[in-house]
C-alpha cells in the first residue's frame, strides 16, 4: 500500500515539475510582452540566459567529474577572437561567432595538453592558473588586441530578413533577448542529447569510478578530452555572443574570475549531474541578484554567489533541481560535491 502511495506521489510530483517547466518556458517566451517591453527587465534576462548557456557548457565537462576554475579562458578567447575577426577583417558576426567557438576549442586543446593528466583538486588549480596565460597575452599583444584598453564599438549582430519581415537583433532589447533565448534552448537540447548519448554515459561512468570505466573499455582520456573540447567550444560561442551583444570587451573583464566562478556556482546550485539544473539556477539567481541585491548593495552585491555556493555544498550538494528529481541520481552527501 505505502509503496504504491509513494510511487503515486512521485508520479504526481513528476507531472507537477513538467507543468511548472512548461509554464516557465511560456513565461520566458512571453517575457517581452509581460514586462511591457521594459529594456531593463529584458537586459537582465538576456544576460541571465547568456550565463545559463555558460553554466550548461561548463556542466558538459563537470559531468565527467572535473571541476574547472578556468572557463574564463574560453569565454575571453571566444569574445576576443570573434570581436577582432569582425572588427579588423569586416567579417559578419554570424561567421565570426562560430570561429570564436573554434578558437576557444583550440585553447581547450592546449589546456587539455597541460592539465588533463591531472585529477580533481590539481586539475582545478591548474585551470585556475591557466587563465592567466591568455589573459596576459591579450593584455600585452598591443598590435593585435589593442592591449588593456579593450575593444569598443564592436559590430552588433545584423538583423535577419525573412521576406518582408525584418528581425532586429542588436538594435532592440527584445531582439537580443529572443536571440539568446534561441541559443539557450538549442544548447539545452544539445546538452540533453549529449548527456543521454553514449558519450554522456561514458562521462558519468568516468566520474563515478574511473578505474571501472576503463576496465569496461571506456577510453577515459579521449572522452575527457572530448568533453573539455565541447565545453570550451560552447563557452567560446557564449563569449563571442557576449562581445557582439555588449559591444565592448576588455581583458580584465572577459578573462576575469567572474566568468570562471559564475558557471560553477550556477551548475552546483542547480545540480551538476542534471541537464536543466544549471540553466534554471542562472535564471533564478541572476535576476535575484540584479533585481533585489543590486539595488540594496550597489557595491558588493555579488556576495550572493559566494554565499549560495557555500550553502549549497553544505546543505544541498546535489543542487535544488537534483534534489527535486531525486531517484534519478546518485546520492551526494552534504559537505561534498561528489
Amino acid at each position, binding site marked *: 500500500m505505502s509503496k504504491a502511495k509513494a510511487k503515486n506521489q512521485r508520479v504526481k510530483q513528476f507531472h507537477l515539475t513538467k507543468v511548472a517547466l512548461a509554464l516557465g518556458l511560456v513565461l520566458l517566451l512571453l517575457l517581452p510582452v509581460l514586462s511591457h517591453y521594459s529594456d531593463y527587465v529584458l537586459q537582465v534576462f538576456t544576460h541571465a540566459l547568456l550565463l545559463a548557456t555558460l553554466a550548461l557548457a561548463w556542466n558538459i565537462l563537470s559531468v565527467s567529474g572535473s571541476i574547472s576554475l578556468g572557463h574564463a579562458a574560453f569565454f575571453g578567447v571566444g569574445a576576443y577572437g570573434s570581436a577582432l575577426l569582425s572588427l579588423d577583417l569586416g567579417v559578419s558576426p554570424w561567421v565570426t561567432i562560430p570561429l570564436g567557438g573554434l578558437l576557444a576549442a583550440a585553447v581547450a586543446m592546449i589546456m587539455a595538453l597541460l592539465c588533463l593528466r591531472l585529477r580533481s583538486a*590539481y586539475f582545478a588549480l591548474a585551470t585556475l592558473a591557466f587563465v592567466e*596565460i591568455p589573459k596576459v597575452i591579450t593584455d600585452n599583444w598591443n598590435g593585435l588586441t589593442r592591449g588593456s584598453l579593450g575593444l569598443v564599438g564592436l559590430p552588433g549582430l545584423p538583423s535577419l530578413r525573412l521576406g518582408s519581415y525584418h528581425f532586429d537583433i542588436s538594435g532592440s532589447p527584445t531582439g537580443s533577448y529572443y536571440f539568446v533565448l534561441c541559443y539557450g534552448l538549442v544548447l539545452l537540447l544539445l546538452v540533453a542529447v549529449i548527456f543521454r548519448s553514449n558519450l554522456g554515459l561514458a562521462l558519468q561512468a568516468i566520474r563515478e569510478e574511473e578505474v571501472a570505466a576503463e576496465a569496461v573499455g571506456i577510453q577515459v582520456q579521449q572522452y575527457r578530452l572530448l568533453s573539455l573540447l565541447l565545453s570550451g567550444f560552447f563557452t567560446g560561442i557564449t563569449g563571442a555572443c557576449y562581445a557582439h551583444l555588449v559591444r565592448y570587451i576588455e581583458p580584465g573583464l572577459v578573462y576575469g574570475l567572474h566568468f570562471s566562478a559564475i558557471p560553477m556556482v550556477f551548475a*552546483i546550485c542547480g545540480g551538476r549531474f542534471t541537464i536543466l539544473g544549471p540553466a534554471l539556477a542562472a535564471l533564478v539567481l541572476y535576476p535575484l541578484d540584479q533585481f533585489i541585491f543590486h539595488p540594496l548593495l550597489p*557595491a558588493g*552585491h555579488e556576495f550572493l554567489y*559566494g*554565499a549560495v*555556493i557555500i550553502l549549497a555544498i553544505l546543505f544541498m550538494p546535489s543542487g535544488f533541481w537534483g534534489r527535486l528529481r531525486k531517484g534519478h541520481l546518485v546520492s551526494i552527501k552534504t559537505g561534498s560535491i561528489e
Partner: protein
Amino acid sequence: MWTTVLVSGITLGSFYTLVALGFALIFGVTHTFNLAHGELLILAGYVAYWLWKSFGIPFLFTFPAAVLVALVVCLVLQRLFSLLREPMELNSIVVSFGVAVLLQNGMLFFFSGDYRLIRVPALHQGLHLQTIYLSYSQLTLLALSLLVIGLIYLLMRHTYLGKALRATIQNREAASLAGIDVGRMGVLAFSIGALLIGLAGPLYGSIHYLYPTAGLQATLLAITITIFAGVGRIRGLILGGWILALAESSAVVLLGASWREMVSAVMILTLLAIRPQGILGREQK
C-alpha cells in the same frame, strides 16, 4: 641591472615565502586548499590601511589588529572546513572559492574598489652598499620575513608542539594513533596561518596596491611555492619563494612589467606537468 634583480628577488622572495608558509602549513595539516588565502591577506592589509589612514596609527602598530582580524576569519574558516567530507582537497577548493567571492565583495563594500597603498615616508629612503641600493622598505620586508620564518622553523623543529604538527603533516592516522589530537592540530595550523597572514597583509599593503580582487595573485604565488616545495619543508619554501621572485623580476626586466602576472601561472602548470600526482604524491608512493 642584474644586481637590482637579485636584490629585489631575494627580498621579495623572502616575503613570498612568508605568504606561502601559512598556506602550506594549513594545507599540510588539514589537507584543505584555502583559495581565500590571498583575500585574507588583502583583508589584513586593508585593516592596517584603515587604522593607519583614519586614526594615524603608526604602521608597525597596525600589525596586532591585522593579526586579530585574520585570526577571527581563519577560525571561522576552520569551522566551515571541518563540516566538509572527503575528498577534502576538491571540496575545500570549491568552498574556499565561495569564501573568496564573499570576502572580495565584503571588501568592495567596506573599502570600495579604489587602489590603496600604505605609504610610509620613512620606508622610502634607503642606503647604498657600494653599488647596491637597498631601500628601508626592502630591508623591513627582508628582516621581518626572515625573522618570522625563522621563528616558525624553530617552532616546527625544536618544540614538542612542532613535532606534533610535523607528525600530523606526515601521516594523520599514525599521528592520531600516537595520541595527537589531529583536530586540535588543525585549529593550531589555522591560528599560525592567521598570524602569518596578519603579518604579511600590512607588509603587502606597503609594497603593492590594495584592491578587492588583488588576492588572486597572492593565492597563486602561495600555491606555486607550496607545490614547488611540498608541505612541511620550510627550506624548500624559501628556495621556492626566491626562485619565483627572481623569475618575476627577470621577466619584468626582459619582457616588461605586465608579463609578471604570468610567471606564477606558468610555474604552477610546469610543476604540475612534472609532478601530476600533486604535492602529497611523494609520501603516498
